[in-house]
């Protein structure tokens, strides 16, 4: 059993699509925010996979760095959006 760049990109595509699906499916805007970190994680997995498999001359840690940055950015955006949504009604 092995996994290559195509498998990684398939999983990354799945994560982006599931994130987009959550954002489109949820009626409540705050619940739809949960799709955001998944879409960002899909991009991060694609970067990490490309860095792992397909960069002959580039820095090997570049994809890892971008993946960490997008994860932190997703957390910041969710915090901001939950704060803004805090003026709604509790359920």
């Amino acid at each position: 059993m092995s996994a290559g760049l195509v498998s990684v990109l398939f999983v990354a595509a799945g994560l982006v699509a599931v994130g987009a699906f959550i954002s489109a499916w949820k009626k409540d805007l705050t619940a739809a925010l949960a799709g955001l970190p998944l879409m960002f994680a899909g991009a991060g997995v694609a970067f990490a996979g490309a860095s792992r498999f397909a960069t002959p001359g580039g820095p090997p840690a570049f994809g890892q760095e971008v993946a960490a940055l997008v994860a932190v950015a997703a957390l910041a955006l969710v915090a901001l959006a939950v704060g803004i949504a805090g003026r709604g009604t509790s359920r």
Partner: protein
Amino acid sequence: MDSLHAIGFYVSAAISLGGGLLVAFLPGRGARGFALAATGIGIAGLYVSLSAGFSGLVALVCFAGCGLLLAAPAYRVMDVAVAGVWRQLGAIAAAGLLALLCYAAWRGDFVHATFFGGAINSASVGRLFFTRDSLATEAVGALILVALVGATAAWRLRDRGR
């Protein structure tokens, strides 16, 4: 990638995608937050099997934070004033995006190379953060600052409105 890493990769992919679907379909906010944290475990496993352990740690912490934020008692509902037809179109567009990305991955002609990095490699990542890509790091730092200030301002406005 050897068999052990490949098995870890596929198991982590199943956990992350399954967790994402649970986030979409579970009814309560607590259950959704828990499912999001479980998704984070799967994504961290994906990173570890791709020899990106440092990113895995960061993703684990960030997903746990997102899960806590979305499951916390401060959670408030904001209903979208968009017709159901548009939301269904959005869901169909998500399926179309998946098909397009899968086709691109399948038809892509990629270069194969030898990997020289380590399992965690946090020193190399730190060097990139503070030298070559310091501008991007500062941009994300500024985003976090704006997000925290914005969230604090929003919460204060809510308390003042009561």
